[in-house]
């Protein structure tokens, strides 16, 4: 009974407080460009970076939050806390990090941190008000990790915006992502070069 009351109160407070500190989460598999997009948003509206992005998988291994980002588009205004999450994966092998020249001890430490990062990302799902799923548009979208992330957001009734990132690359295929997840809005962008980012902000207003 107490549990039920607690759940009701937390749900009520979450809804009540939604406008005050809306949380927008960046989710997706590793190397989709979540931190690059987070940096793009922070640069555009705060003039500073959020975190370090690199081509190596699991560069982000902790939840990063940037508070009170205020964006404006076509006369509308939206204030939110941006949550950049570690990439979700089903496998982590420290030997993969060795291939990029990392020492064994460092690789093992990174792998350990990466597993914790995945756990934290999943735990934080319930805290989100809106989620932007960032996918690498050059990679096949039919992966189970993508389906599991999006399925969990659907089950939790959290609004979703799909970003098909890396459209500056020749292999990028937005249509394939649209075909894989036809029930969601998909915006093709290049977070790295700022291509079509305006369209991203416009669509974020529609979803949030």
């Amino acid at each position: 009974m107490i549990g039920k009351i607690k759940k009701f109160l937390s749900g009520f407070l979450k809804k009540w407080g939604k406008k005050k500190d809306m949380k927008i989460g960046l989710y997706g598999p590793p190397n989709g460009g979540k931190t690059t997009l987070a940096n793009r948003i922070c640069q555009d509206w705060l003039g500073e970076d959020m975190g370090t992005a690199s081509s190596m998988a699991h560069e982000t291994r902790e939840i990063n939050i940037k508070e009170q980002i205020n964006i404006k588009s076509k006369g509308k205004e939206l204030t939110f806390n941006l949550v950049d999450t570690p990439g979700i994966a089903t496998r982590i092998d420290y030997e993969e990090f060795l291939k990029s020249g990392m020492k064994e001890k460092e690789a093992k430490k990174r792998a350990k941190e990466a597993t914790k990062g995945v756990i934290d990302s999943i735990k934080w799902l319930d805290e989100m008000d809106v989620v932007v799923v960032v996918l690498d548009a050059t990679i096949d979208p039919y992966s189970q990790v993508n389906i599991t992330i999006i399925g969990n957001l659907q089950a939790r009734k959290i609004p979703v915006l799909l970003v098909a990132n890396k459209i500056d690359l020749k292999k990028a295929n937005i249509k394939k992502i649209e075909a894989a997840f036809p029930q969601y809005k998909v915006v093709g962008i290049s977070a790295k070069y700022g291509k079509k980012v305006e369209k991203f902000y416009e669509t974020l207003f529609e979803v949030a």
Partner: protein
Amino acid sequence: MVTLRILPYTEIEHLSSLGRIRKILNIAKENKIVLMQGRLRKEEEAELIKTTMEEIDKTFKGIELAVIYPSENKETGIFASIKNGIINTLLGDRQGLTIVGPATIVKQIKKDPKKIELLTQEENSKKKSSRKKK
């Protein structure tokens, strides 16, 4: 050698979410590929990933996971929707097929709406494959 372990729905239907996850993970940790009749709920899939991450160590590097959902059947229209509704009521999460393999054996499970391919680590060759959609 690759060992497949068939897990019929009757073996998991009485289990709790935690029990189902434990059962799948225990088999995968024995270096066997699980072919489970039915599927986990979305929240259970996330829980499976979380539990997998908690158990990664020197020998266990994680899993590869693929679920064939009944909704991947693209039939549309009112009759299909009624039919799907009835099937869903009768069978629930008994529908579909779940494949879970240890990452040390399964390199990748490639899936698109028409087929599913399981690539093993050994020689990176395609060992198993292909379930065509009706």
